[in-house]
């Protein structure tokens, strides 16, 4: 394993590994410094959606970024699967959001109308009526009034995706250090020197911080604001059953192994990812409202996980001004953006001439 490289990536979750994937493809040498088995690791606790609808309603540039990310996905997954033999089971057949309240439904209709206009018509959504959604999804019933549909939404097995990326990067020469925590960082003569708590010393020309919630502590070492905070989401997972759901929705999907995964919550609980009965109950009730037949299924496990949230919920892509060559990359939608993180962000990191500017995602927007 090397201790000197073109790039040092701090944080080996979905964001770090997606970026490493792209950098390795460009021929860069990459080191990854990663945390421990019991860290919060949002990459192990997400819903597994590759999702466009509902995002960037107030920020069309983010909706466009996400839309593009979904378009890059099929090739990204195909190549990863072929190279590693890992089955990611990506299914991009579109997805729904179900509505039980007429006011929320009509508000959403307006929002998508506006967003489509802002994107010059490039936003192919539809709305399904009560009878249409029941015909499309036989499990739907109860209080469902209708659903929004976006054709390029999809889902996959996020743990297999993570494993495929780790396996791919390992094959292509990533030096991946586990169980490490950054202690000090400095830059001398254009080279970054990172020292971990265990005494591992790494040198790199450029540094990427993709440490999730760890950016709050590590960010300032490199001149970043590091404005990330935890938001808890809880998920219920049922027993495995035969295929009953045709497409995923933003809160209910049937995973490749057959279990039905149901979310979610958005809680300010601090650094606490415990499951709570109150939320489990609420999530179950809401799911039964939309799909009454779920009531008899048994819950095999429930869990909570911490999303990595920026102040406006949008990704942060920023190059440090005080220490140029250090980059902060953080978002709460690491799965959806994996393909674009691999392609577009790696071009941005190497300063490629075709790289996008991404200034709308910089930390500058937080200086009021």
């Amino acid at each position: 394993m090397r201790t000197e490289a073109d790039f040092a990536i701090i944080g080996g979750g979905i964001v770090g590994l997606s970026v490493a994937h792209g950098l390795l493809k460009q021929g860069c040498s990459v080191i990854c410094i990663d945390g421990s088995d019991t860290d919060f690791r949002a990459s192990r606790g997400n819903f597994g959606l590759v999702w466009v609808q509902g995002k960037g309603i107030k920020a069309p540039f983010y909706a466009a970024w996400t839309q593009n990310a979904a378009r890059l996905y099929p090739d990204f997954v195909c190549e990863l699967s072929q190279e590693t033999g890992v089955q990611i089971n990506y299914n991009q057949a579109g997805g729904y959001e179900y509505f039980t309240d007429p006011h929320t439904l009509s508000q959403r209709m307006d929002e998508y109308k506006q967003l489509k206009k802002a994107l010059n018509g490039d936003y192919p959504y539809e709305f399904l009526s009560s009878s249409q959604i029941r015909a499309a999804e036989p499990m739907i019933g109860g209080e469902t009034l209708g659903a929004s549909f976006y054709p390029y939404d999809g889902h996959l097995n996020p743990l297999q995706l993570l494993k495929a990326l780790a396996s791919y990067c390992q094959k292509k020469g990533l030096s991946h250090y586990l169980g490490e925590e950054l202690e000090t960082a400095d830059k001398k003569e254009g080279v970054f020197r990172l020292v971990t708590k265990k005494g591992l010393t790494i040198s790199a020309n450029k540094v990427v911080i993709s440490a999730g919630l760890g950016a709050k502590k590590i960010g300032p070492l490199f001149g970043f604001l590091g404005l990330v905070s935890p938001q808890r989401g809880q998920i219920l997972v049922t027993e495995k059953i035969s295929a009953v759901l045709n497409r995923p929705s933003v809160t209910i999907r049937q995973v490749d192994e057959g279990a039905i995964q149901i979310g979610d919550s958005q809680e300010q609980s601090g650094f606490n990812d415990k499951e709570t009965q109150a939320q489990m109950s609420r999530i179950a009730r809401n799911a039964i409202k939309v799909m009454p037949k779920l009531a008899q299924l048994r819950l095999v496990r429930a869990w909570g996980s911490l999303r990595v949230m920026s102040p406006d919920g949008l990704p942060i892509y920023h190059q440090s001004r005080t220490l140029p060559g250090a980059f902060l990359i953080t978002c709460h939608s690491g799965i959806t953006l994996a393909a674009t993180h691999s392609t577009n962000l790696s071009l941005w990191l190497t300063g490629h001439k075709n790289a996008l500017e991404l200034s709308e995602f910089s930390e500058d927007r937080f200086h009021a």
Partner: protein
Amino acid sequence: MRVAVIGAGPAGISASLALIARNVHVTMLDEQPSAGGQIYRNLGNVSRKNARSLGSDYVKGQSLLKQLEQANDKFFLTLISQASVWSVTEGKEVSWSIDNKSYCQKFDAVILATGSLERSMPLDGWTNPGVMTVGAAQILIKTARYSPPSSVLVGSGPLFYLVACQMLEMGNPPKALLETQNNSDLLKAFIHLRPNLTSLLYLAKGLVMLAKLRIAGVKRIKAVSDVRIKSADKAHIIEFSKAGTKSQIEAETVLLHAGVHPNIQITQALRLKHDWNQENQCFEPRTDKFGRTSLNNIFVAGDGIKILGADAAKISGKCAALALLVDNGFAKAKADLSRAYRVHQKYVQIRKFLDVLYAPKDWYSCPPNNIIICRCEEVIAGKIREAVKIGCLGPNQLKAYSRCGMGNCQGRYCGNIVVNLISQIVGQTPQETGYFRIRQPIKPVTLSEIANFQELP
């Protein structure tokens, strides 16, 4: 003051009786149809004659059950049977399910007395129908008066010989005992024998059992390893090695046993610290000497802390209850607690000897690649080793990469093996490796129960 006692085995019953004696309200929650735990399973329903045939240790439970029955008529005890406890929170809210309906109640204190589980013995064919644990056979004897005919037992440990004797009493002695420990284990173990009256009585009991088996002509094959079970229809062929030679034996039922370890589902779900016991190759919840955990008014008692057997569990239950009383203003309980603790310590002496004598063997603790480790998700050891090499320092990343531990049993049967496998490859201690993150519900519950659980006042 209201206390929940989870588990109606010797520790749970003892704890409840000690609390009721001081007019504390106790709600006992147990998932079996009647009290007794596994050791005194169904004791309340069997005839005197049948109980005696299962041995003196079984019969001993009768007085405890009788005391419980008497207490049940009084005001302070609520015994809820067939209740599957699926959640215990730090705030001492306990949730349970009976007949597809769930209830939740907040208590002032909780005593966890959920006992033990049999250690996994992953070997070739261990998931085949007709292959069960020795404990399973004992449950069949106790609840259905049925002893599987033409059985071969594989493994070692006190329960191994006890069940062999019980099968003998039932008229269906084992066809053979394939014992995994050898003479070197016996020699190593003897160094740790510290004879006190309790140990000597225990050893005597063991020797009586071995004598019964010898007199009945039950075949004992010792120092066995590399066991493989090939099953077809209703018969099994068990291949094994002994002193470099391969042999085989046929059986209708194969019964496995490699000792027991604490059932840590609830203590892990509460995120209590656990310590690795190297002799018994398992994690144990960290408690003080009386069973107090790091959480206020949450206690553990019995084999759920450390395997010491039913007699010790009875005292342990009493200790936990007395510690609870002391912590909640019953100062007079302090003297009783010291006395009970001294009795409890007598049972600790024999343990080191037993743990070394019956130490788990590598060939099933760190099995070859083709063996299924996670029964629920059908994950083989090879897949686990491969996943660890891609990048896992602990069982949670391993779970993510392999699904091992994600099934219905939530790691009960693969947990400790996984810890061994990871530790071996990564080159760290099991303590450093850690355990699965266990979450509520610790038993499956329907969505409708979760949505509509009834909160009791």
